[in-house]
């Protein structure tokens, strides 16, 4: 039996090993069609890829275009200038808007409950802790302004007066001050000096050994302005003496003193 089976293997191996059979004629046509389909599918796939690539390319080109357009727009000299200006303005605004310091009404000066003086405009208040501190920027700006546009002394005086008078003063202090202090505004704006003021002025100058020029009507307008203020604020004469030579310094001192004057109840 086993031998027969073994023979069966050999029988079939010999009989069918190198056998050849012609396939039907249409067999190749069927294969050809399938291969064509494959080609179409591959082309379709290729076009799908091409579509995506073209879309991506389009986005990329649009991005580059936008970038170039923006760069050119920013490089435009006129626009660039405007941008720089805007930036400068912005940076200024971030500090304190000092451009409108001629208009003192825009400036807020107040003292809160903790005796803190706040100086600045509505948008950019500058908070200072203490009584006598003043924003240096403000003073520097004043300095610069005065250097650049030396205003007539009367104008400076009036501005100081204005700034002082613009401070809100409580009724009580107003009442008490009205009796004791001279009308500063009157003294500053109406130049003629009263006899009493003249006396005080002379006394002060004598004490401080300041040489008063004979013709101090015009040139010593500063003194006219300052002396009553010095007197009013009870300033030490020596300090004033050292600073009277410099009008701006004096002005600063006065401003500082005026703001820190405890008698003036600033709200």
């Amino acid at each position, binding site marked *: 039996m086993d031998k*027969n089976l073994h023979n*069966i293997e050999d029988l079939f191996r010999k009989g069918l*090993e190198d*056998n050849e059979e012609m*396939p039907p004629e249409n067999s190749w046509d069927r294969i050809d069609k399938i291969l064509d389909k494959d080609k179409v599918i591959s082309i379709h796939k290729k076009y799908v890829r091409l579509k995506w690539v073209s879309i991506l390319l389009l986005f990329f080109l649009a991005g580059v275009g936008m970038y170039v357009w923006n760069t050119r727009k920013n490089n435009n000299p006129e626009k660039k200038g405007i941008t720089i200006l805007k930036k400068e303005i912005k940076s200024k605004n971030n500090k304190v808007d000092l451009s409108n310091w001629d208009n003192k009404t825009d400036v807020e000066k107040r003292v809160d409950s903790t005796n803190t003086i706040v100086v600045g405009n509505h948008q950019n208040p500058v908070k200072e802790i203490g009584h006598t501190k003043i924003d240096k920027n403000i003073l520097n700006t004043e300095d610069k302004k005065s250097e650049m546009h030396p205003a007539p002394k009367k104008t400076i005086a009036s501005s100081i007066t204005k700034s002082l008078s613009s401070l809100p003063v409580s009724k009580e202090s107003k009442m008490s001050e009205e009796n004791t202090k001279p009308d500063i505004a009157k003294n500053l704006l109406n130049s003629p000096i009263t006899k009493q003021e003249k006396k005080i002025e002379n006394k002060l100058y004598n004490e401080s050994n300041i040489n008063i020029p004979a013709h101090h009507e015009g040139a010593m307008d500063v003194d006219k302005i300052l002396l009553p203020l010095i007197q009013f604020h009870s300033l030490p004469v020596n300090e004033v003496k050292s600073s009277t030579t410099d009008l701006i310094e004096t002005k600063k001192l006065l401003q500082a003193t005026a703001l820190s004057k405890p008698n003036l109840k600033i709200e």
Partner: protein
Amino acid sequence: MQTKALIQDCVEGDRHSQNKLYEQYAPKMFAICMRYSKSREEAEDILQDGFVQLFRSLHSFKFDGSFEGWIRKIMVYTAIANYKAKLKMHAVINIDGMENIAVINNEDIISQLGKKELLKMVQALPPMYRIVFNLYVFEGLKHREIAVLLGISEGTSKSNLFDAKAILQSAVANSLKIANQNYSNG
């Protein structure tokens, strides 16, 4: 050298070269497909799928071994894939009534029965038996390899081969009997 150039052209997608390659190898491959299939139609399907697969994967041929052997392998694998796809449709055949055949010379049997008759016997085998028989006898695979390839145990492979040979032996015996009767009558 000519085959190499032909293969290169086929890889590039030249349809004429592909047709040439088909015509060169189709008869041999169709004979193999016939052994693995139940009918001619099924063999045509295997041949068609095999050649499509061949042209798709032709770029992976490295010219290391025989090209004919490579194509043959593709056809066999296609046939196995075809068998696996139709696995659920195959009915289990009961093998009974085996007949012993007289020990005679194989050449004589082949001359008496003819190659077509032998092929029909193989085609008549149950699918699993047919594949195992083909893989073992014609492809020279071992039972371990057949088991791995078909996803069956080695024992099953051996058993299937034994049964297949038994069926074929019975079929050859019957055919010889009929042939002898016809010869004596004629």
